[in-house]
């Protein structure tokens, strides 16, 4: 078997897994699939680009800035858009979230045009091993994804705030009865997820290109990974991302690469129809 397939699948998974976890977490507290993530990711990519290229900050610092920025934007979107509409149906909120993505994309296009851009980083030859190639940025993406997933695990399982996040996602009424300020915990969750989407924007800019559609193009794979792993189950999302990455790469072996995006669609369709709780989850997306 070709090792390159696994390398590509791994890079893909590293790109998709963190936002899929965030998507799942967000679904847990807000109870609707938030398709604004495309807009958030694009915003993250362009924020980091702005810090990095026009302002000349080193990329790690620009990344941090982008994460703070998207964290803030996602919180703002929660307070201004989704919270006032929280009594609406999940479908309504989903449509609103798609609209929000279109708006954010348009704003980015207004300021940056649709040109393709890249970060200010030195070009390096990819490393080669056993016939497979991997770039330095790809290794960094994988390392960051592993650190992030581990960090999220520790946060959710072993800290007071993380436990409260899971409790609020599980049963907000009971959480309030036990004295948890559910609104505060929800706000914190949105900031955390926003920061992860910002980071994904940077990853996407490194591995793909920076353009207004970068976030939208990742939305379907992220949603597919989250569905595959069981929506509302952040751990399932990691495995979902790995499986999706592998499925996409295997598809390219037999079909032209333009069909890669279809893999996500097919997985979403199959799972929503046959197993809406995903491979591991318990929550279901209502049709």
């Amino acid at each position, binding site marked *: 078997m070709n090792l390159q397939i696994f390398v590509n699948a791994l890079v893909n998974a590293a790109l998709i897994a963190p936002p899929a976890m965030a998507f799942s977490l967000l679904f847990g507290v807000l109870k609707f699939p938030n398709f604004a993530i495309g807009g958030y990711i694009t915003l993250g990519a362009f924020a980091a680009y702005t810090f990095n290229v026009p302002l000349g900050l080193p990329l790690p610092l620009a990344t941090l800035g982008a994460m703070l920025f998207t964290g803030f934007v996602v919180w703002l979107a929660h307070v201004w858009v989704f919270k006032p509409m929280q009594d609406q149906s999940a479908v309504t909120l989903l449509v609103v979230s798609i609209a929000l993505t279109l708006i954010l994309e348009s704003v980015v296009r207004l300021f940056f045009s649709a040109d393709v851009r890249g970060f200010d980083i030195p070009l390096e030859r990819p490393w080669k091993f056993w016939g497979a190639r991997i770039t330095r940025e790809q290794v960094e993406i994988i390392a960051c994804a592993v650190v992030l997933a581990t960090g999220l695990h520790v946060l959710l399982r072993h800290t*007071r705030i993380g*436990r*409260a996040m*899971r*409790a609020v*996602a*599980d*049963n907000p*009424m*009971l*959480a*309030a*009865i*036990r*004295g*948890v*300020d*559910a609104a505060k915990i929800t706000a914190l969750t949105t900031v955390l997820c926003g920061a992860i989407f910002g980071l994904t924007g940077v990853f996407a800019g490194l591995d793909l290109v920076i353009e207004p559609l970068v976030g939208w193009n990742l939305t379907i794979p992220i949603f597919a990974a989250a569905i595959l792993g069981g929506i509302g189950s952040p751990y399932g999302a990691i495995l979902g991302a790995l499986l999706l990455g592998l499925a996409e790469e295997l598809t390219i072996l037999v079909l032209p690469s333009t069909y890669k995006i279809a893999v996500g669609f097919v997985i979403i369709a199959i799972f929503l129809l046959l197993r809406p709780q995903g491979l591991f989850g*318990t929550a279901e997306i209502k049709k």
Partner: protein
Amino acid sequence: MTEAILSVAGLRSGYGRTVICDDISLQVSAGQITCIIGPNGAGKSTLLKTIAGVVSAIDGSIRVAGVEMAGLPAARVAGSGMAYVPQEANVFRALTTHENLAMGGWQDEGRTQAARDRVYDMFPDLQPLARVPAGNLSGGQRQMVAFGMALMLEPQVLLLDEPSAGLSPLMVGEMFETVRRVNAEGVAILMVEQNALQGLKTAHEGIVMAAGRIAMQGAASELLNSADVSELYLGSRI
């Protein structure tokens, strides 16, 4: 009569503009069990929710150990010495038993370790289930987790909404035994029960609710012997 730990006066509440409970006045004395019975839809759950701050009071007063609670949201009522166990969804299904208990101690994390040991002492059956998600537990076990969680902050009064609902007949007896045990530790209890006979037998005081108001109130033994109560609520069960 001993000092009242929970004192409700002229309470009115409901959902939106619909008033469900009206003119509710009751007292729960320290260390006593009070049982509320009444037909479906009488507003029993709504009353407990209002006392716990989940449904906001429109009018009236709710005092816990003399401190006014009416108008406070549930999260603020939580640390007041009163703990509420809802009728449904009263555990965090995705969290383990251990984590559920930790959530019970949310407002005083420093005490969690000791409080949890105390709860495990009280419900030894929970100890081996510490790492099991509450969603995977049986109805009786879940009810124990819910009790344990509510006892974490050592409340002086416990509000229980139909603790025996959905349990097997064997478990129902055990549940009332547990209620007595918790009460024996000095915790006053205000509970709603469909199982009027067992509920009143367990309680010191009884309240009959109908159409959102208190229809009858008195010593549990008196209610048990009252012709009206037997006919309406105990008839089929004796």
